[in-house]
């Protein structure tokens, strides 16, 4: 399948490298030319210099034939806008948007137009789980809080 990724930071470059290695076609959009250095030397996909909140840039990444769009730039609002732009203008089956602010993530997840990923929530939950698993005195109430965070 064809995957368009906005943002070539640690996450974007890693996802791009793995998907490319798995035999998918990948296009990476990034505003900072230097960031493309993060891609593995074996990367065969396309790199596009520009912002994902621009229709022309998305088209250059062949968004029209994409099966998935992944917004993982360093800015929540840019990720949110790009994902909605893709949802409105193009028929892309899977739209994944990283939002680091948990409250903002909650608002846009509820709108139901994108799959949201909130690293703040998931990383916090993992840390708390790990801490709790070493605590012999964990009460059922604490466990409930922990599960609440995970969900």
């Amino acid at each position, binding site marked *: 399948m064809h995957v368009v990724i906005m943002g070539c930071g640690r996450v974007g470059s890693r996802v791009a490298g793995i998907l490319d290695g798995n035999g998918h076609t990948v296009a990476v959009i990034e505003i900072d030319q230097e960031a493309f250095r993060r891609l593995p030397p074996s990367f065969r996909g396309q790199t596009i210099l520009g912002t994902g909140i621009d229709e022309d840039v998305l088209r250059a990444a062949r968004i029209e034939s994409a099966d998935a769009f992944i917004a993982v730039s360093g800015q*929540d*609002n840019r990720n*949110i806008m790009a994902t*909605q732009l893709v949802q409105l203008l193009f028929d892309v089956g899977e739209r994944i948007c990283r939002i680091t602010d948990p409250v903002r993530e909650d608002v846009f997840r509820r709108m139901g137009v994108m799959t949201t990923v909130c690293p703040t929530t998931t990383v916090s939950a993992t840390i708390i789980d790990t801490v709790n698993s070493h605590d012999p005195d964990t009460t059922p109430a604490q466990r409930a809080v922990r599960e609440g965070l995970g969900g």
Partner: protein
Amino acid sequence: MYVIVTGAGKVGYYLSRHLLEEGHEVLLIEKDASRVDLLTEELGSVITFGDAAEATTLYNAGASRADVLIAVTGEDEDNLVVCQIAKQKFKVPRTVARVSNPRNEKIFHLLGVDVVINQTSYIRNLIEQSIPEQSFVHLLDLRYAEHLAIVEVRIDQQSVVAHRAIGELRLPVDCVIAAIGRGGHVIVPTPGTELEPGDDVIAVTRSDQETELRGLLCSTC
């Protein structure tokens, strides 16, 4: 009215001052601390530091009782998201966003922003209106009728329509000549009114017929 303005650049600053002068309650939110420090001396508690896209900032601003939220930062994506959060989470009845990329105007409307201010188009229109050689000027898109526009045409000496009655012109359908500016006066035309060189013709037209109308009124003998 209680108005929240986000982005204390020049637009946000002058807009807030204007709204205050009109007697509205205003809160200006800015995420650059040094800009806030600079303006606090003058605006006092009207300006506050924070990222308006963070729900806590809007919560502390009392967004749920705001009548209007106006997002005028320089970043289109920030303006969009702030308006969407204000609407979704705080039920702000009216949101206004400034866009720099003209293409975003339509998209922001589709995404639920009530009023979209397309500054690039405004400036372009102002420039067009002030260039005298340009005889056909797009003045305005009508807010509630997406496909209608108001245009202004200067009739010159060589124009094929000069000295002809409006009733004789084969205007495109869905196009009317609403007014004529002549020698500092405005004439409301009838079919018998003859166009004269120097007339400024104001027409209401369907947007997709602007080109045809231009062809008719601007062609020369």
